[in-house]
């Protein structure tokens, strides 16, 4: 049937379409994750500044007896890098309404995160010095400990989203929550890359 002028008038008088769903959780998560990253980067900046001052005086940065091993830190970086892909897999699977793959990706991501935490704990054991032994050790424990805490929050966020996915709340366009969790996770991994370079690589 041909469209008449009257029909068009009806359309023009229709109320405006509802506003696009505001990405409240995503924006809030972006701001919150930035705050968490900034807290950590503040400590990294303090570490780098003090290290530069000490090296400029021709002294050795890490005190005698301390042992910041390359392997646990680098394994942590590799593990978290892998988790970037599995978290992206979660988001893609839920956007495709594929809950089976999404849950599998959730599980793999959480296992990788747990492996990173385990590696960090191993690194602390191998350091050979306690937190009270020197300012350097205190800063290393503070930075790596804070990052493990940040990772823990990310794991909790992912776990909550996994439960929501199991409940069928996160599918298709309604998957903003898991996008927010993924964003937080990406910031966590990006932050670790700075920690890894500063402490594990340059020591």
């Amino acid at each position, binding site marked *: 049937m041909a469209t008449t002028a009257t029909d068009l008038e009806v359309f023009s008088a229709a*109320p405006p379409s509802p*506003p696009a*769903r505001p990405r409240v959780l995503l*924006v*809030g998560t972006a701001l919150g994750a*930035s705050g968490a*990253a*900034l807290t950590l980067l503040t400590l990294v900046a303090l570490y780098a500044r003090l290290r530069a001052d000490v090296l400029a005086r021709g002294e050795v940065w890490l005190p005698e007896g301390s042992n910041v091993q390359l392997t646990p830190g680098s394994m942590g970086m590799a593990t978290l890098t892998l988790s970037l892909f599995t978290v992206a897999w979660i988001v893609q699977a839920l956007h495709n309404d594929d809950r089976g793959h999404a849950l599998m990706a959730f599980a793999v991501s959480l296992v990788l995160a747990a492996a990173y935490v385990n590696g960090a704990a191993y690194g602390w054991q191998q350091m050979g010095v306690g*937190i009270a032994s020197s300012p350097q050790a205190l800063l290393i424990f503070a930075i790596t400990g804070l990052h493990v805490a940040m990772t823990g929050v990310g794991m909790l966020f992912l776990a909550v989203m996994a439960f929501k996915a199991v409940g069928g709340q996160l599918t298709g366009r309604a998957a903003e929550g898991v996008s927010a969790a993924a964003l937080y996770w990406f910031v966590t991994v990006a932050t670790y890359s700075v920690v890894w370079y500063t402490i594990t690589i340059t020591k």
Partner: protein
Amino acid sequence: MTVTEASREPVEAAATPVPVVPPPGLAAVVGSGDPRTVGKLFIGTSLVFLLVAGVAGALVGFELGDASGKQVFEADTTLRVFTLHGTAALLLGVLPLLIGLATAVVPLQVGAATVAFPRASAAAYWVWLVAGGILLASYAIDGGPFGADDDAVGLYVLALAVVAVALFVATLSVVTTVLTLRAPGMSLRRTPLFSWSVLVAGTVWLLTLPVLGGMLLVTYLDLRYGQQFLGGPQGVYDRIAWLFWQPTLYLVAVPALGIVADVVPVFAQRRHQRHGTAMVLLGLLSAVGFGAWAQLGVTIDGGEAPTPWLFEGPWVVVSFLAIVAVLGLVGLWNLTLAAGRPRLSTPLVLAQMGTLAIVVGVVAGGATAIDALDLDGTTWMTAQATMVVGGALVAALGGVAFWAPKLYGKLLPDAGTRLGGTLLLLGILVAAVPQAVAGALGQLRLAGAGLLDAGPGTVPGVVRGDVDTVELLDLVSGVGLAVAVLGGLTIATALLRRRSGEGPGDDPWSGHTLEWLTTSPPAVGHFASLPPITSEAPVYDARHGAVRPADTTEAPA
């Protein structure tokens, strides 16, 4: 417990605001996620903390007023009370007051049904309240910076860190509200200036508070594990002192100036002149207010803290850009008032008084950037902080008076509010001017080892000038803060004795922005419908026929 709140996505629900039916008893307060309730809680509690800060400052002034012996407490206690004054005034006082006002008003201004994260805002308030209480309690058990009990000092640091986290969450909620929940048609360019100021200043607070949190974490760990390089209890204040001087100090001025920017056009009965320029100037002041870089340095062996940034380019530029921004805003408000027919109502009076104090404080800050004046580290900086924070407080109270119909459903009594505001400003001026003069005479500020080095019974840090003169100035400063406390009590009384009888109506001031379209106090969901938003002053447009009032749209999410 049930949390009462409006849905964030009430496209349909908001179309028909429903009367508020609060749960009975304490649950109405404790379980509320209503932004107005949370905002009022922030405002009320921060006023109590501000009274504590004022009393502490006055006691310090009286103590320093006579160098012959202890008047109120020992020398090391004077330092601790001074830090209590600063901490309570900023992080338990003016900043939460502004956040509370923003939590209640911003959703109304942007046409939203509630804040972005109502439960997080409520949780932030309660956490802030408890942490603030613990912070005060830590002073009572010999804690706080320069305290003798290491555990109590550690408790202070932890409580302050939790306060920072709570303020971060509350700020995040209002910033996200402005970013995501604006009504259809309200582009950022059309955002009311108070909401805009909350957005820009809040964003910089979101960058600043994590830095504070990081510094507090490492300070706590150093305190707890051997006090290896941050100076123990004596070094705690050095890690947070940057919050209390420029440029970070200006971040509390930005939302206060945003309040003024919303109040002036309403009482000038004229659209804000050059709204876009005002947005740029508020943004500029916020940008220069990021001051986490201007901290006292740290050395690995706990040696003297370097300040390599002092009198360098960025410090000087920031100091003078702030003056440009504030004077530019004052110029725009003068233009607006000149173009309109000003009504000298209480909110405008308080807003102007607050602006005056902020302008003086910011200009005084510019003077500290001039190396030849040798004002850095003196009580000139204390005076500057007193002016800026005090000015922000007076302007914020002007905002409370302005939005009282939306906050409380009542107007504040004019006489009491004006008297309180005047006493407050007078007290701030009487407190700050002698501090500034004493600073020019060379008195070092109480934020380091100055007083301890001087020992009990001496005026701290007087490096030149007459001791008797400095003592007198300190005493007058203490009297000024006592007058300010009196002003605060008068305003608190005015708040408690809100005008009874019939409500003020939905729009008693002939406002310009969306909050004046809803009821006083607002119903849950806030708006039944909204006019088309084609400018920053949609209600002014509707009143003056710039758009047809019938062209309304459904309320947004």
